[in-house]
C-alpha cells in the first residue's frame, strides 16, 4: 500500500522529471536539429570527416609542406594566383568565429561569412548541392580540428579580376544555387552516386571544358576538358571513346577509383591525387554507387568530340618503323609486344581509352614523365613507369606515341613532335 506522502513525492518527482526532461529534450532536439538525425556530436564529427574526404578539402586547403587544412596553397589560374584560406577553427585566421549557418551559406551560395563573394576556385557551384545535414557534419568536423593560428595570404589576381563584384556577372552565367534533388526515376544507389559525384566529389569541375571566363556550361558537363595551368586533360566521362564508362565492368570502375589501378588502367596526374587523398577513403558501397551513376551518363560531344578512325596506313612508314623499334626496346618488357600489358600492374595499351582519345596530352605526358599510381589500401605496392623526357627526343616520343595510338586496332591519331615539345615545360609538382 503506497502512503500518501510517498505518492505525492513520486508524483512531484515525475512531474519535475517530466518538466526537466522535456526541457532537456527540447535542448537536445535543438542540438539534434543542428547535428542532424539525432546523432551524437561524435557520430556527426565522424560523418563530417568522411565527407571531408569525399569533398577532398585537404587537397586545396593544405600547403605542400604545411599543416592540414591551414591553407596557403597557391592556386595558379589564368587570372592570377589565389591562396587557399585557413579552415581550421582558429578565431583570427580560420573559421573559429563561424556558425553552422555561416558554413552552409558559404557552401550553398558561395558567399563568405562577411558577405564577400567567393572566387570559383572554391567549387561552390558543385558544393551547393551538399545537403544541410552534410554541411553541418562537415562544419562539426572542421570545428573539431586543432585551431592553427596561421595567417592567410592575400590573393594576387590581376586587374580587373581582383574586383570581386565581377563575380556577380560570372555567377549569373555559371552558377545555379540548389541542394541535390534525388531523381525519383532512379533508385537509392544511383541517387547516392549522383549526389557524391555532382556534390562533394565535384568531378565536373575538372572533367568539363572551362572557357576563357573560367566557367563551364551545363550541356558540356562531364564531357572532358584540359585543366588550365596544369596541362593535363581530364577525359570525358560521357564518351565511351574517352573515359566514358558505359562499357566498363562495374568492378573495374570501383578498382580504378578506390584502389587507383584496375584491369583497364591506372590513375595518374591530378587523378592520382584525387584517389590518394579522397576516393580511397570512401566505402565500397559509395564508390560502387558512383560507378553506377557514372555508367549512366549520357554520351555527349564535348571538347573531345568523336574522332575519325585513322588506321596505321595513314601514318608515315618511317615514323611507324621508328616508333615500333622504340616500343620494342623501351616499352614491350612491361606493356608486351601485343600491347596487352599485365594489368593491374602494367596497364594495357591496346584499346586503352587514355591512349585512343583525341587529346594526346595524357599519352605524351605519361611517356615524358612516367609515374607511380598512388599507394592505397587496394594497391599497397604500386608498379611504376619510368620517365623518358631526359632520354628521348621530341621525334622519338612522337614516333612511339603515334605507334601506340594506331597499333593493335587502336583508333587514335598520330602526334607530332611539336605536340610533345610544348608539354615538356608542363608543371610536374603541385
Amino acid at each position: 500500500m503506497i502512503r500518501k506522502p510517498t505518492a505525492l513525492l513520486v508524483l512531484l518527482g515525475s512531474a519535475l522529471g517530466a518538466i526537466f526532461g522535456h526541457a532537456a529534450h527540447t535542448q537536445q532536439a535543438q542540438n539534434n536539429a543542428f547535428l542532424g538525425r539525432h546523432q551524437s556530436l561524435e557520430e556527426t564529427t565522424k560523418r563530417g570527416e568522411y565527407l571531408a574526404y569525399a569533398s577532398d578539402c585537404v587537397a586545396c586547403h593544405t600547403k605542400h609542406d604545411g599543416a592540414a587544412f591551414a591553407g596557403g596553397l597557391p592556386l595558379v589560374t589564368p587570372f592570377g594566383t589565389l591562396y587557399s584560406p585557413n579552415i581550421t577553427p582558429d578565431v583570427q585566421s580560420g573559421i573559429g568565429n563561424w556558425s553552422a549557418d555561416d558554413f552552409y551559406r558559404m557552401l550553398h551560395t558561395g558567399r563568405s561569412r562577411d558577405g564577400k563573394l567567393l572566387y570559383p576556385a572554391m567549387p561552390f557551384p558543385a558544393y551547393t548541392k551538399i545537403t544541410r545535414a552534410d554541411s553541418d557534419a562537415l562544419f562539426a568536423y572542421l570545428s573539431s580540428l586543432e585551431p592553427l593560428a596561421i595567417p592567410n595570404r592575400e590573393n594576387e589576381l590581376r586587374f580587373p579580376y581582383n574586383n570581386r563584384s565581377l563575380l556577380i556577372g560570372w555567377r549569373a552565367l555559371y552558377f545555379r544555387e540548389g541542394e541535390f534533388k534525388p531523381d525519383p526515376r532512379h533508385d537509392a544507389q544511383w541517387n547516392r552516386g549522383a549526389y557524391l559525384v555532382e556534390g562533394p566529389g565535384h568531378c565536373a569541375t575538372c572533367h568539363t571544358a572551362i572557357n576563357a571566363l573560367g566557367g563551364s556550361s551545363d550541356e558540356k558537363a562531364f564531357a572532358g576538358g584540359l585543366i588550365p595551368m596544369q596541362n593535363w586533360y581530364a577525359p570525358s566521362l560521357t564518351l565511351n571513346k574517352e573515359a566514358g564508362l558505359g562499357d566498363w565492368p562495374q568492378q573495374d570502375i570501383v578498382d580504378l577509383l578506390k584502389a587507383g589501378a584496375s584491369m583497364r588502367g591506372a590513375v595518374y596526374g591530378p587523378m592520382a591525387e584525387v584517389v590518394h587523398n579522397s576516393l580511397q577513403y570512401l566505402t565500397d558501397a559509395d564508390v560502387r554507387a558512383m560507378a553506377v551513376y557514372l555508367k549512366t551518363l549520357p554520351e555527349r560531344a564535348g571538347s573531345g568530340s568523336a574522332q575519325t578512325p585513322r588506321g596505321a596506313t595513314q601514318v608515315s612508314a618511317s615514323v611507324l618503323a621508328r616508333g615500333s623499334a622504340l616500343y620494342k626496346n623501351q616499352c614491350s618488357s612491361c606493356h608486351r609486344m601485343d600491347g596487352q600489358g599485365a594489368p593491374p600492374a602494367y596497364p594495357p595499351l591496346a584499346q586503352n581509352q587514355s591512349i585512343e582519345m583525341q587529346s594526346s596530352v595524357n599519352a605524351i605526358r605519361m611517356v615524358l614523365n612516367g609515374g607511380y599510381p598512388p599507394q592505397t589500401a587496394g594497391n599497397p605496392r604500386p608498379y611504376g613507369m619510368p620517365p623518358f623526357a631526359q632520354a628521348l627526343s621530341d621525334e622519338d616520343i612522337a614516333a612511339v606515341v603515334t605507334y601506340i595510338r594506331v597499333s593493335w586496332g587502336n583508333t587514335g591519331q598520330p602526334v607530332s613532335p611539336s605536340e610533345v615539345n610544348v608539354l615538356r615545360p608542363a608543371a610536374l609538382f603541385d
Partner: protein
Amino acid sequence: MSHRILLAALLTPLLIGSGARADTPAGAPDTIAARVQGCATCHGDSGQGTQDPSFPRIAGKPAGYLFNQLQNFRDGRRSYPPMNYLLQYLHDDYFTDMAAFFASQRIPFGPPEPASVSANQLADGEQLAHRGDAAHGIPPCVACHGAQLSGINPGIPGLIGLHSRYISGQIEAWRAGTRHAKAPDCMSDISHRLSDAQITAVAAWLASQPAPQTSTPAAQGSWKTPLACGSQP
C-alpha cells in the same frame, strides 16, 4: 637412354620457364625489382647509374640513406621535379622496401671518371678526403664516409662511383640552402666551410677513384663520426 628421357622431362619445364619473357600469359612479376622499374631510365635497372652525370649510382648505398632521400624528395626537402612527382603519393613502408632492394644490389662499378682538373688540384682533393682541413674545421671525408669511402649504415652514403658534377652540385646545393638533411645537417655545415677550389678538387678526386676493395657500407656504430648528423643516429 631412359635416364636421358627422364632428365629431359625434368629439365624441360625449367627450359621453358627461362625462355619465356614478356609474352607469357603470366602477370607482372610480384617482386620489388619489377615495381621499381620506374627508376630504371635514370638510375639503371639495378641502380648502377648511367653515363648521365645528373643521376647518381644508388646500388649498394645504405638502406637508411636511400630511405631518407626518398622521403626528402617526397616531402620537398630536396628539389628535382621528376623525383618529386614520382614519389608524391608513396608512403614510408614502400620506401623501406625500395631502399632495401637497392641497398642489396651488388653491381660492379664502371670505370672512374677521367680527371678534368690539374694534378695539383687532384692532390688537394686527396688531401681533403684523407686529412681534411683543420684550419677551417673541415674533417676528412673518410672520417664519416669510411676509410674506403663506402659509407656507414644506416645513413652515410659511399662516395665512389659518382660523377664529379653530381658531387659538386650536391655540395653547392647544401651551401646555397636548397638541399636539406635532417637536423643537425652536418653536410650543410661542411659545405659552408669549403672554398670553391676545395669543392672542385674533392669532387674531381672522388670521381676519379677506382672501385674500392669492399663497397659494402660499414656496420652501424662501427666507429664514431666527428660531427653529429641527424641522418646518422
